[in-house]
């Protein structure tokens, strides 16, 4: 007896449509969550390197708290624990308008924001402190120095680790199926239960994730080349900034 592969289940019936819907949902939730995560990460990562102590503590608290609690717990938290705190009409409105999607976005965004924050912080800390001093010495305020000098440089430096984090975010978006978001993994499971073809469905899902991640990794490395600081790539190889 052998397992009979039947790849046609992937395009027979509704499977193809489901995979496509799952892919679209995965992209939607990942993109929106990424924007949240990236914004939070850049901001809090930068704040963690400034000399204003209360702000730095606040940012550190955010990072440590959100990064060290498992994502699954956050999914349940934002979906089950938060809505009851809202007024009833708002709750109903949310539940009628994809509350699970938005809970998933917030959970992913805030969790990965904390992780992006660490990436950003170490990026900024790899920039010599005297560069910041030189910037403020010309009369730029601290905020201007960060906005015009420190953050633009850090963003270029962190492209490789930030790409990694972005790919993690995409993979982690599948955790949202626990609160009912019909993303890609959800749909592969769906195909599996409808067609009872586990290997085929799983393989299809895996391949789609792989292609998605490859596409992003390629785009990011193009981006890295495009925005490379002139002279820096060769310098970085010799261990200098």
């Amino acid at each position, binding site marked *: 007896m052998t397992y009979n592969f039947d790849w046609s289940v992937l395009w027979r019936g509704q499977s193809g449509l489901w995979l496509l819907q799952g892919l679209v949902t995965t992209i939607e939730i990942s993109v929106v969550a990424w924007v949240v995560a990236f914004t939070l990460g850049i901001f809090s990562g930068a704040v963690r390197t400034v000399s204003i102590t209360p702000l730095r503590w606040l940012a550190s608290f955010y990072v440590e708290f959100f990064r060290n609690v498992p994502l699954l717990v956050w999914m349940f938290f934002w979906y089950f624990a938060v809505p009851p705190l809202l007024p009833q009409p708002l709750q109903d409105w949310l539940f009628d308008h994809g509350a699970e999607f938005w809970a998933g976005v917030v959970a992913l965004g805030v969790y990965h924001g904390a992780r992006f924050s660490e990436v950003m912080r170490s990026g900024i800390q790899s920039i*010599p402190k005297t560069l910041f001093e030189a910037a403020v010495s010309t009369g*730029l305020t601290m905020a201007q120095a960060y906005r015009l000098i420190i953050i633009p440089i850090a963003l270029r430096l962190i492209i490789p680790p930030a790409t990694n984090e972005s790919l993690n975010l995409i993979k982690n978006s599948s955790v949202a199926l626990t609160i009912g978001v019909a993303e890609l993994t959800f749909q592969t499971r769906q195909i599996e239960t409808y067609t009872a073809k586990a290997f085929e469905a799983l393989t299809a899902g895996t391949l789609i994730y792989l292609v998605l991640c490859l596409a992003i990794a390629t785009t990011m490395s193009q981006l890295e080349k495009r925005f490379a*600081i002139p002279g820096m790539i060769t310098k970085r190889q010799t261990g200098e900034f």
Partner: protein
Amino acid sequence: MIEFRDVDKWFGSLHVLKRINLKVSGGEVVVVCGPSGSGKSTLIRCVNRLESIQSGEIIVDGQSLLDPKFDPSKLRTDVGMVFQSFNLYPHMTVLQNITLAPTKVKGLAAGEAEKVAKELLDRVGIPDKAGVYPANLSGGQQQRVAIARALAMKPKIMLFDEPTSALDPEMINEVLEVMTDLAHDGMTMVVVTHEMGFARRVAHRVVFMDEGQIIEEGKPETFFGAPQSPRAQQFLGKILSH
């Protein structure tokens, strides 16, 4: 122009500036020297408030840095600073490096700022490097851009912290020449350097520091010709034998 009154500074338990009293008047060029770790950098970094002090008072251009209304960004537009490690913005061209502060801080129009920047590049001797990125310049050229960047804000005071220490010997002179010109144009300058030739030729006064204190100060010819304190003698002995 700059006045230190009984200034003390600590880094934690480390007492780095001890009862410093120093006056620099307008148009004066003061060279600060002394052994490593004696507090020279800390001293000039206090002038533009990159470091804060624990006691005493510093007055720059008639304004006390302890004044509650004091605004460090405002002060820094009047006080340019050049560092040992040139610290150019690596993601910007030479021109952008120079025009950034004038446009963002003073609100100068882009065209106006560029005109000023080109004049300054001319002045520091690299008019053809406007569109180049810092990584493609030699050390001496980078330091000259850094000087031009500081001058673009039209400061009243220029601070130099060992501007030539990171340079290959053949590039030191091109930077010192620019600084000499600047001094001859009447800029108020405080220069931390071990370039004794420059000090002799350009400085109006030399300040010698050791262990956080000003040990000796005087005209270059007096200081180099007949140093009073044993520590200065020892220090000069070491430097000049190299």
